[in-house]
């Protein structure tokens, strides 16, 4: 299985972090445009889901799957958005996404006094820890 890329946004849609592991096709957009498009899409999906939902729900949007890839979405109660793109064989990874928030983001961004919140993450310790976390996942495969 493959992890393509990860995006982290703050609640206002500013991109805090993005990393690609395996990417074969570009969107033909600049990085900034692409980040905006991705966030905009997720934002629209959220609103779409709220309106379409036949019942009262809590978590809302969880994931979508196309014929070739899958987007997993987790939003912390504080509005941080974690978006992970994988291949379509990865199942429900809600708990993994939560763990990414609680044991990587909270530990190494929130608790690093030199990481301002709501600004792009520059800490290389965070990056290292993230890499360890991701490569340790059962569905991570460095297939290029």
């Amino acid at each position, binding site marked *: 299985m493959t992890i393509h*890329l990860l995006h982290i946004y703050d609640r206002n849609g500013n991109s805090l972090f993005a990393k690609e592991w395996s990417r074969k096709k570009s969107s033909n957009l600049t990085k900034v445009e692409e980040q905006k498009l991705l966030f905009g899409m997720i934002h629209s*999906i959220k609103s779409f889901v709220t309106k*379409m939902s*036949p019942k*009262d729900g809590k978590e809302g949007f969880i994931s979508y*799957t*196309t014929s070739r890839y899958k987007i997993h979405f987790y939003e912390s109660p504080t509005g941080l958005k974690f978006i992970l793109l994988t291949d379509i064989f990865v199942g429900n990874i809600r708990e993994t996404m939560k763990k990414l928030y609680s044991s990587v983001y909270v530990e190494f961004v929130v608790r690093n006094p030199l990481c301002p919140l709501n600004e792009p993450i520059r800490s290389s310790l965070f990056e290292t820890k993230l890499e360890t976390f991701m490569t340790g996942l059962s569905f991570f495969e460095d297939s290029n």
Partner: protein
Amino acid sequence: MTVFSIYIINKAGGLIYQYDHQKSSVEMEKTFSYPLDLKLEAYSDQVSVVFGQRDGIQVGHVVLAVNGKQTNGRKLEDGNDVIETIANEKNYPISIKFGRPKLTSNQKIMMASMFHSLYAISVQLSPVHGSSGIQKLETDTFTLHCNQTATGVKFVVIAEPRQVGIDSLLHRLYLIYSDFALKNPFYSLEMPIRTEQFDSHVLSAIESTEKTGSAA
């Protein structure tokens, strides 16, 4: 198991067919004394609960009626403003009916066109070549399944997450579409489908899916 609704969207993003199978409506009417302990705000032409919950009334629910008068957007049928009426102590005790907002036909058309664009964006954002758009969208309350035909028509089924047999239902819908819309000489392409025959076949396909997990 439940299938909630069906949407068929043409290649331009226009809604040509829509059917709500499960008419679940959550409505609660309750008499309140002053002051109201729910926070209301006017949102996109509806007055909804933004914070607070009680007796089944939840965040996201909208005001449907006040003292028996139906709401019409932000106003009551007698022309009074909903928020002002509820804020006024003189109107208490007050009876308010809350419910989950229901999509109007206009909103359904908007939702269809929104999904159409989301589908296109999901293709553009694909990290790999040759990807379709969204085929399955999962949430905690429903799952949306979409099958886009080679001609660009999207069949969308919204069902309970654990509903099985959706692929077969999607396929069946496509067959119904070609048999009872495309082959109908009075049907003009890309236009809304309005025939009873079509409706009844869709209904039986859904019912069969709910009962047996297969639309065949």
